């Protein structure tokens, strides 16, 4: 039985309930941490979401924290609980969350954003919307796939390095395993005409998905004539055979330079800046697979 107790005082009696139940009741003495659900007992330690009724109730992430005893401030905001606190979610819970989300990133990393919001903010209540939005902007700005970065960053915010590892594992391992498995299957089935034809068909399906991703990012990317021109210029360069690396470096440089010149001219924020929250908000409104 996985124990997430970590220094939380035992209620006196041996843990009757499972420690660290991901979902479900956790009733008993010394009940440690239900991620979702009731955590009724003495010395009840930390319910991620849900009731935490008991004596010495330590940390309810969200929800009632009716009991005696101190609660401790945690990572994110929680509305309602008197002493808002958040017991860091368990390694397994983070892993599982990201594992669940991985299949949704069919259209590319950006595709998970709405699902992430549903899961992290609404569902598990692990962080509030604004924190998530900031984290996602950061994820998009950093090199590497947005999906992977987002996983690491969110995981880190939730539980430091182990959290990042859990999130990363959940997001990456099943993917690579699945991709490899599919590929081996393809090699095994051989290059029959049917298989080739099916693959050709799927290519178009994937092309559509990718097109949609481009469309989505294009909507936020192209905000004025300059960005439109930039995109076209980049396309032309690509078609001409310029290695994409240069374009990325160039684009970043141009972006920073453009920002600075605008700043100097107006002495204000570059007009192109959008608050991080808006970008994500706009995103989730037009991408909802679930």
């Amino acid at each position: 039985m996985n124990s997430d107790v970590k220094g939380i005082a035992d209620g006196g009696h041996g843990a009757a309930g499972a420690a660290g139940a991901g979902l479900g009741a956790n009733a008993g003495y010394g009940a440690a941490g239900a991620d979702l659900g009731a955590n009724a007992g003495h010395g009840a330690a930390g319910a991620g979401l849900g009731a935490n009724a008991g004596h010495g109730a330590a940390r309810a992430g969200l929800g009632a924290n009716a009991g005696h005893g101190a609660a401790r401030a945690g990572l994110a905001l929680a509305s309602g609980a008197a002493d808002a606190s958040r017991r860091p979610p368990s390694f397994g819970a983070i892993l599982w969350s990201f594992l669940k989300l991985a299949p949704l990133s069919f259209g590319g990393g950006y595709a998970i954003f709405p699902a992430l919001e549903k899961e992290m903010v609404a569902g598990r209540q692990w962080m509030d919307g604004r924190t998530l939005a900031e984290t996602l902007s950061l994820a998009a700005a950093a090199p590497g796939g947005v999906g992977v970065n987002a996983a690491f960053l969110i995981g880190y915010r939730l539980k430091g390095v182990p959290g990042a590892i859990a999130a990363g594992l959940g997001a990456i391992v099943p993917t690579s395993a699945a991709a490899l498995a599919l590929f081996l299957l393809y090699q095994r089935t051989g290059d029959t005409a049917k298989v080739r034809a099916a693959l050709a068909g799927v290519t178009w399906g994937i092309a559509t998905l990718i097109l949609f991703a481009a469309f989505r990012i294009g909507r936020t990317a192209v905000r004025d004539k300059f960005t439109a021109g930039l995109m076209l210029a980049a396309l032309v360069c690509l078609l001409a055979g310029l290695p994409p690396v240069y374009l990325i470096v160039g684009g970043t440089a141009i972006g920073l330079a453009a920002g600075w010149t605008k700043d100097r001219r107006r002495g204000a924020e570059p007009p192109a800046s959008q608050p991080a929250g808006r970008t994500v908000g706009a995103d989730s409104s037009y991408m909802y697979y679930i």
Partner: protein
Amino acid sequence: MWTLFLFFLRLGFVSFGGGYALIPMIEQEAVRRGWMTQEAFLNAVTVAGMSPGPIAAGLGTIVGYRTFGYAGAAVALTGLVLPSVLAVAALLLLVSRLRKQSWIDRLFYGLQPVVAALILFAVYRLGIGRLGDGAGGGQWLFGLAMIGICWAMLVKYRMHPIFILIFSAVAGAAFLT
């Protein structure tokens, strides 16, 4: 094998903007260096696209596998992911000190159009690649029709991508043989 690792490492560092932007870069290197033929690469992209999760991870794994077997797959993946990890860690440290909003936005301003272009380019390459070894006219029509139908399914009817993939596979098998 070391070259493989370095290659993916380098890729990892400049892979801004999401998995699809990576595809042209991976293609450029893998095909140019002769690790795989273009057709093989396209198939890898397709297979990687079919599997859940970020396409870059899947693609990296497959390319790694094709070059150096299972070890290659692991190496490629690590190389791809490591820079992310480092960069993310670095960013986290920086962010707490700077007025994060402004420079990230500026960065985005220039970078996003490039990323959009990269993604579009990826689609273009995918299409061209498929058409290259095809029969010509009929393929074009089929391709465009497929994109149109899939787009409608995706955007208008908000179907889950997996259905779109299944549909396109079946359609391909049905119409292209």
